[in-house]
């Protein structure tokens, strides 16, 4: 048994057939090939699967694909503008907010959600904002510094400096 699901992901409309039990993260990764969204724990603790669904950050391993039917989704692949990087991406790079990078997409999506509601968060508010995201390499110091830096860049309205894509 499959269900038809309509998803607009990073501005691109998709129609996919999914089993009712299929998780949104697997629809993104397996059906749409968007492997930037990671499955870290499968139990909604680590936040590596965080995406934006209808403007709010969700852990996509906790959402069924059918629940997202008709929804608008943004993943890490949809963060950067045509040229260059999103301020958060640039700040994570600049401030050494990653080592292995596995948690980074979820961190960036959670941080984007935080900054959308609170453009000038304190360090405590940043830590609270990413409390659902686990990083096993860097410690959180540089991640907090990166989010603080990105908040400042976004507030200043400055265009993020162009980065290198590979």
């Amino acid at each position, binding site marked *: 048994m499959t269900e038809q699901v309509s998803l607009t992901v990073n501005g691109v409309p998709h129609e996919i057939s999914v089993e009712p039990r299929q998780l949104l993260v697997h629809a993104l990764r397996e059906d749409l090939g968007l492997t*930037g969204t990671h499955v870290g724990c499968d139990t909604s603790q680590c936040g590596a699967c965080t995406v934006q669904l209808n403007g709010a950050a969700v852990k996509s391993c906790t959402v069924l694909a059918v629940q997202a039917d008709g929804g608008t989704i943004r993943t*890490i692949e949809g963060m*950067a503008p045509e040229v260059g*990087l999103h301020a958060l*991406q640039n700040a994570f790079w600049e401030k050494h907010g*990653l080592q292995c*990078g*596995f948690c980074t*997409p979820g961190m960036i999506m959670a941080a984007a959600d935080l900054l959308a509601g609170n453009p000038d968060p304190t360090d405590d508010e940043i830590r609270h904002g990413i409390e659902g995201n686990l990083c096993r390499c860097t410690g959180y110091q540089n991640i907090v510094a990166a989010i603080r830096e990105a908040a400042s860049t976004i507030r200043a309205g400055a265009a993020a400096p162009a980065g290198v894509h590979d």
Partner: protein
Amino acid sequence: MSTDLVGSSVKRVEDPRFITGKGRYLDDIKLAGMTYMSILRSPYAHANIRSIDTSAAKAMPGVVLVLTGADIPYNPLPMAWPAGGVAGIQNNINTPRVLATDSVK
């Protein structure tokens, strides 16, 4: 190496792919004909295996292969250094099986 690098903050060259979701972790790699594997672990903390009935699993639609410890010959790779360090004991004495055969713990 230029001494200008000492004490300066250098951006990592590997970061762009990770911050844009283009990293390629093991779970991201899809190969032609690739199948999924699932491991059934013992429901008991420490127990002897009397028998394993795989017939229901093998009868499931789409199941390609069911393996138990009995299907895998015990052929451990030699360890790089002696385990235990006791003279006369084989290096591979503590090398566990891929899948349990007689007991689980």
